[in-house]
């Protein structure tokens, strides 16, 4: 197995082209028993396994993946990272994630291509600029970088937007987080997988969990397509399919599975140097290192597990794109795809214990799973190791709706995605 990647290993392999690079992570046969079994070999599951081993010294861990590593939402998102949240709980959690992103390539000895190109969220009315000022103040009080831009500033940074008198949504200004940006999403899955594997974690692909083994109110293992695996503790990290897996343990979650589509155009020369989001409609766009514009919008609006999007939503997102950036009308769309995501009533996730002893839940990520990956794994590992939530994820409990402590970051009540 490859121990460390460095300039020297690169040179060694360049000089000896017939010696193949070793596998990035080992592919062991599953053992009959582990201290901790993580269901789901996506970004969150692999990060959890890595931090269990690294921060808590728990290395007898298996990550069970139904398909191959990186086949789910960690490879289906639009790769954006940011920490511009308003509600206490979200603000601190996502900033912790941002700090982990900042050192992630070094931490994992794997180039995740973390690019702090900045996110510019465009305001289309004076009222929205007031809301942005409030958001910026909250961010700065929490030590997070934020600045307000007026229309002139935006025009300098983003000269390609529609500033004409006829613009349906005139641009008044923006809020800018310079440390926000993009990360190469596949590298996050591969980097965590490799680093976890080097610490002794078993990553078991093509191993689907088909049932839970219960002993009274306690979970003691899982049934899989490769036989029964006993476990001291079991962590679910299968966002998109959380309801489906939790049901095997008799749990009914505050989650509906919806499809979110993403889009990529043909590659063009560098034009968009930031992550650009829009206040008029949910729309976000960045330019990949290959030159493609990568963008997305809202969910399709009805529950489905199909990973196939509907044409009307493609049309909606394209209309948004062209309305904001008229030059895009002449570009060709290269690819589009769908990912299934857990939608929760308040738009916030779950990282918590469950009513079943020794069973833990990580899910309900809505639109924000990718940017949360490092902090999600970090806090989930803490929760599993100590059987107690960390201060950073205490607010992401399963019973928060019973207690009236929703995390309503949009400030417009439950079910924002249904409005």
């Amino acid at each position, binding site marked *: 197995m490859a121990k460390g990647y460095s300039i020297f290993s690169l040179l060694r392999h360049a000089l000896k082209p017939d010696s193949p690079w070793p596998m990035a992570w080992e592919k062991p046969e599953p053992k009959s028993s582990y201290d901790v079994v993580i269901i789901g070999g996506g970004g969150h599951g692999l990060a959890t396994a890595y931090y269990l081993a690294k921060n808590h010294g728990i290395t007898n861990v298996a990550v069970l993946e139904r398909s191959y590593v990186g086949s789910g939402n960690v490879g289906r998102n639009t790769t954006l990272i940011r920490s511009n949240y308003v509600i206490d709980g979200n603000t601190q959690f996502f900033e912790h994630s941002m700090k982990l992103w900042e050192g992630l390539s070094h931490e994992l000895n794997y180039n995740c291509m973390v690019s702090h190109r900045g996110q510019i969220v465009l305001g289309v009315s004076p009222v929205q600029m007031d809301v942005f000022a409030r958001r910026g103040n909250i961010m700065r009080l929490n030590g997070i970088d934020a600045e307000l831009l007026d229309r002139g500033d935006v025009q300098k940074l983003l000269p390609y937007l529609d500033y004409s008198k006829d613009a349906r949504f005139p641009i008044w200004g923006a809020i800018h987080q310079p440390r926000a940006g993009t990360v190469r999403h596949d590298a996050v899955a591969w980097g965590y997988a490799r680093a976890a594997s080097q610490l002794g974690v078993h990553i078991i692909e093509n191993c689907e969990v088909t049932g839970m083994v219960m002993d009274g109110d306690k979970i003691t293992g899982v049934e899989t397509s490769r036989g029964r695996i006993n476990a001291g503790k079991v962590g679910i990290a299968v966002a998109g399919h959380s309801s489906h897996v939790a049901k095997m343990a008799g749990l009914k979650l505050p*989650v509906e599975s919806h499809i979110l589509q993403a889009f990529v155009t043909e590659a063009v020369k560098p034009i968009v140097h930031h992550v650009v989001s829009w206040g008029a409609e949910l729309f976000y766009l960045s330019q990949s290192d290959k030159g493609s514009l990568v963008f997305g919008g809202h969910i399709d609006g*009805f*529950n489905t597990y199909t990973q196939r999007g509907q044409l009307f939503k493609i049309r909606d997102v394209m209309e948004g794109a062209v309305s904001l950036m008229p030059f895009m009308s002449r570009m060709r769309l290269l690819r589009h795809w769908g990912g299934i995501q857990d939608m929760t009533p308040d738009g916030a996730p779950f990282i918590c214990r469950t009513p079943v002893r020794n069973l833990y839940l990580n899910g309900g990520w809505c639109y924000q799973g990718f940017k949360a990956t490092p902090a999600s794994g970090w806090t989930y590992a803490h929760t599993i190791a100590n059987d107690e939530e960390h201060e950073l994820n205490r607010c992401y409990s399963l019973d928060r709706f019973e207690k009236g402590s929703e995390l309503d970051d949009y400030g417009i009540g439950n079910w924002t995605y249904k409005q």
Partner: protein
Amino acid sequence: MRVPCPHCGERDVSEFRYGGDATRQRPGHGTGDLKAWHDYYFTFDNPKGPHTEYWQHVLGCRQWFKLARNTATNDISGVVE
């Protein structure tokens, strides 16, 4: 996806609005504890497979109806009476 409206016939899904699980039973007024109302309002079966759900033909006749659809395939087996 094409949705069969019982009044207007088959139309594109973009004319419709999804209204959620149609099999949930609302607790009667004045009955049930907070837990019962929480479970009714906040939790879902969210099955991967057959699902009976409400739809409204918002850009057509505006009629509400129940539809049987498979969430794993989007195959619609028809309107449920």
